């Protein structure tokens, strides 16, 4: 596996691509990388320090942990505290603060909260513990939706009625559309998230690109993928082109993964969705269809109506929209740190504030 990774991290290749970018770029461009994994690869590799000054990279809303709305976290906390429940989650959701506490606190107070690596593990727990209710916190973009859909289909097939999902899926294209439609938008080109495109394909992005006259490059998540994506994007921008191009050819097909998409639309329906820090975006989320209601934890545990207000201090919303950078927040690195996060962009390893805190804090605080 490492062989396949080192190829895309090779510094010699990186320098070649960087040189090409320098040659092509003639004026300033504002570019957004949508995916949190890309943000991390950029900061972690030090690539942002090596790019020509003309390129202003802003970090997009592509961290599913960050944009999961407060009420979903609060619902998770309420369900996880129930004695009959085994609450399963991906690891990085455990530290995301809800209104008062996080899942780690619920666990230390006696809640049975477990880290799993796939919804299928939660399904296995449901098989092994028929007397308990096993709930999986099903969050993420289009990338995790197929697996979460499959778990529900499988649970129905096996009659595992003690399994359910607290689902809160978000979709990338409506978020990009919302950003592009905003009067404050300054982003001129997008690196689309390679993994999302692997599932969904490129057609949605072609529509956006045509409508807003904006170039989009489906890009992988390794440093040299991102550099190559940037090069393709800068070439388009400099030439005044706006097309959808595919840098991540080793994974992304034009039509996406058809089976995965079918599975998703069988189980989920598209709904208006609240994004933490951003607000409600039309048709930007997925909800479990009525036909699978018994596997919907929000319905099962009757916490659908729970509504909460977000904190006023945290600027994660504007960071997620690419309008400000983490260092612009007065609380950054002071009141707000990974061990005591005010907002979700500081919590997840994929969050922009966390990436800046981890690798750039003193540079920011000394300014």
């Amino acid at each position, binding site marked *: 596996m490492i062989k396949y990774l080192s190829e895309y991290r090779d510094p010699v290749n990186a320098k070649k691509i960087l040189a090409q970018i320098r040659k092509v770029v003639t004026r300033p461009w504002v570019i957004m990388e949508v995916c949190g994994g890309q943000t991390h690869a950029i900061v972690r590799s030090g690539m942002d320090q090596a790019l020509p000054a003309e390129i202003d990279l802003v970090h997009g809303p592509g961290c599913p942990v960050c944009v999961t709305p407060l009420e979903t976290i609060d619902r998770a906390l309420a369900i996880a505290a129930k004695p009959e429940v085994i609450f399963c989650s991906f690891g990085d959701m455990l530290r995301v603060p809800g209104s008062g506490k996080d899942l780690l606190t619920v666990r230390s107070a006696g809640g049975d909260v477990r880290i799993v690596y796939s919804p299928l593990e939660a399904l296995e727990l449901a098989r092994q513990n028929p007397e308990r209710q096993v709930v999986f916190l099903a969050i993420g973009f289009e990338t995790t939706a197929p697996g979460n859909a499959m778990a529900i289909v499988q649970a129905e097939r096996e009659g595992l009625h003690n399994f359910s999902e607290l689902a809160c899926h978000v979709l990338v294209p409506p978020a990009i559309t919302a950003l592009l439609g905003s009067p404050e938008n300054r982003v001129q080109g997008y690196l689309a998230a390679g*993994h999302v495109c692997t599932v969904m394909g490129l057609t949605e992005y072609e529509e956006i690109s045509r409508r807003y006259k904006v170039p989009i490059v489906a890009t992988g998540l390794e440093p040299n993928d991102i550099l190559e994506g940037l090069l393709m994007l800068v070439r388009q921008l400099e030439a005044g082109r706006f097309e959808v191009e595919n840098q991540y050819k080793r994974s992304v097909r034009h039509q996406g993964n058809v089976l995965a998409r079918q599975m998703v639309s069988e189980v989920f329906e598209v709904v208006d969705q609240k994004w933490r820090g951003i607000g409600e975006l039309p048709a930007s989320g997925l909800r479990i269809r009525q036909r699978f209601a018994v596997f919907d934890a929000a319905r099962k545990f009757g916490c659908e109506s729970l509504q909460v207000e977000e904190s006023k201090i945290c600027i994660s919303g504007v960071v997620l929209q690419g309008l400000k950078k983490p260092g612009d927040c007065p609380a950054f690195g002071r009141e707000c740190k990974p061990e005591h996060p005010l907002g979700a962009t500081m919590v997840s390893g994929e969050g922009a504030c966390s990436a800046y805190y981890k690798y750039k804090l003193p540079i920011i605080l000394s300014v």
Partner: protein
Amino acid sequence: MNDKKNIMPHGQMSCPVPIMNHDTVQLAHGSGGKLSAELIDKMFLPRFDNEVLARMEDQAVLDWPGGRLAFTTDTFVVDPVFFPGGNIGDLAINGTVNDICMSGARPLFLSVAFIIEEGLPMETLHRILLSMEAAVREAGVKVVAGDTKVVPKGGCDKIFINTSGIGLVPAGIAMSAAALRPGDKVILSGTVADHGMAVMTSRESLSFQSDIKSDTASLHGLVEKMLRASPSIRAMRDPTRGGVAAILNEFAKSSATGIRISRDLVPVRSPVQAACELLGIDPLTVANEGKLVAVVEAGAAEVVLAAMREHPLGAEAVLIGEVVSDHPGMVTEETAFGGTLILDMPVGEQLPRIC
């Protein structure tokens, strides 16, 4: 001023609970990262404050008639109890032996205390004891005291082991994290993250197969060889919980110097690197149980490195960085792209990421 004192309500005269970020103890308080440090600084140190504890080394070095003693204690609660490459038994012996060795001391005597959950199969206990016996023999120490408690089912998870140890520091050896000077070299004895990833990938919830083995080993032989090669070793530590990142940060903090390393020079076995990639974990923050990091005067670095490489536990030893006068108290890493990043103290539990 006096008036104010007089009107202070009675309740405020007693010691309040220190202000912590959490009302209850979290798992992360035991992870060796920032929250562990907070727990020690705010809760423990103020209660037991003395000049020996204040040095914050992995062991206490005590002046005693006839020489200097190194004294340490450690408790082992690993899950699962058996993992590829070892089990809680040899871990408990090697861990305490290594903490003693890191002061340059020769380990001599150990105590062993067990907390056992009722229902533990005798066969399991026996297997653990057999590997403890082997580890004791390997380290050349004697177990001279012990204790056993059995708790009701659920009172602990299978078996917890505490070991304490005493060693003798040879004359002329005085290592301390506070002694680091700019220009000193940082040496790592071999690959990182083997132990932590062996344990993590053998947990039942993680269903992937790998050939990752724990590196649990007693480092006394390697340390002896290093000390014979050169007395110019400033400080040594074994990067257990919190990994290399945590101890480098401790070094930088204790000595008020900066440390700069090149990540590319840190050896990581290929399957370990792959597991870290999959789970989104930085190998520099993962526990090791048979490795050490030494900070050595620049002039002695090559001699120490050569001596280490002659020992099986130091065969892959490498120079990974140096002590600098820039950014005191902070550790930085150079990336392959030529950028500079901060290598921070891990925050808490390692939380595998979603994507």
